[in-house]
């Protein structure tokens, strides 16, 4: 394995919850490498450890054992301060419940992490307006979250996750609270991000979200039980994934929609 190309790397990752006989291994000896530009989906039933895994990789939680590396740097041994700085600068998070600041406008929500990372007010504003445009919400920049639909709120959250040009975006059930149309809006944005070479790790129980990834890991009881490459190599060129699989998809689906015997 080419270590230098892995944005996220985990070795022998373990996370236990509780103590004594009731102790459970939420994440159990997991090894993982996510290369630059790959969209990885992690699926599994609730309680399988997929959210915990995401928190460990993103430095929100510390492992009980094993190592986590981000862009060639070990992060599980960092001090709290250094870890917080790494999170601000190198990763973006998208959560199921959006986690927007209700008192701030859409634009201010997006600007906030940029300001916290030390950017100037002007830089933050420019970056936020660019990103809101990118997620199709330029005309909602001055709205409070309470005046936005669930899908719009999640798109603001995606823009916020991107504001510091993260090495990787971690999304925890990003469409869990969304209807089909809003889910497709978010998936379209993820698709654009992938085409632009963004590394993405998505935890989901929605097969339709998982199916848009380059690679799908199935998790049970804290362990990986399947690792399927759906398409592409995740090199970030963005050309192969969208068009390459287009050949003959109708042929494959024809039977289902009744075009074949």
């Amino acid at each position: 394995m080419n270590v230098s190309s892995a944005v996220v790397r985990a070795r022998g990752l373990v996370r236990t919850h509780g103590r004594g006989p009731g102790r459970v291994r939420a994440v159990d000896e997991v090894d993982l490498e996510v290369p630059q530009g790959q969209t990885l989906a992690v699926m599994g039933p609730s309680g399988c450890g997929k959210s915990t895994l995401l928190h460990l990789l993103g430095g929100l939680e510390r492992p009980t054992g094993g190592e986590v590396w981000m862009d060639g740097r070990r992060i599980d041994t960092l001090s709290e301060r250094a870890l917080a700085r790494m999170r601000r600068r190198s990763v973006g998070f998208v959560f199921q419940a959006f986690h927007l600041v209700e008192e701030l406008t859409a634009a201010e929500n997006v600007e906030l992490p940029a300001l916290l990372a030390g950017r100037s007010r002007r830089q933050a504003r420019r970056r936020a307006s660019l990103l809101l445009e990118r997620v199709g919400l330029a005309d909602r920049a001055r709205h409070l979250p309470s005046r936005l639909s669930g899908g719009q709120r999640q798109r603001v959250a995606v823009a916020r996750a991107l504001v510091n040009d993260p090495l990787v975006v971690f999304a925890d059930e990003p469409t869990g609270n969304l209807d089909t149309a809003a889910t497709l809006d978010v998936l379209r944005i993820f698709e654009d991000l992938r085409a632009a070479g963004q590394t993405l790790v998505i935890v989901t129980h929605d097969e339709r979200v998982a199916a848009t990834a380059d690679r799908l890991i199935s998790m049970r009881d804290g362990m990986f039980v399947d690792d399927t490459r759906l398409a592409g190599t995740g090199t970030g060129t963005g050309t192969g994934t969208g068009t390459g699989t287009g050949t003959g998809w109708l042929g494959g689906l024809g039977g289902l929609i009744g075009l074949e015997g």
Partner: protein
Amino acid sequence: MQDAVLAMLAKEPSHGYHLHARLRRVLGPLGESMNRGQIYVTLARLERAGLVVCERADGLPERPERKVYALTPAGQQRVAAWLAEVGWPKPDLAEFHLKLAAAAAARLADPVELVAAQRRELLRHLREAQQAALAEPAGSGAGLLLEGVALRLQADLRWLDACERAWSGADDEVEGG
């Protein structure tokens, strides 16, 4: 039907009525409409095709119930090919269900592995449907059709999850895989 009957014979040579009973047990209420005559017709076709051989039990009058059917080497090959085949789109749940039951009974293949292979295939189809749907402008008719395709695939994938849970519980050896 032919494949399912063949696979049921992979465990051991069987009487027609025994095969019929096994199929009905595996299929439950869905198998109620299956009559014994269908089984014998299928077995006769398989025999003509050289996939099964029929041995008459000693000293008994020639009645179909007294015949014991067994796979020929060609029949065994056909069963192995059927188990390995990842057939989709073919929304035949009963066939896949029988495949898992036959694979487990004859210990020819790990049902959980069959489920995993099928899931990978469905995910690839779902990915194609999703990408095509994403490329459609909002409100397009083709988008609506693709939505239906994606939802059906999603339903099949959820059923495969249920299959996996059931067959993982049924066999502890699965853990090693």
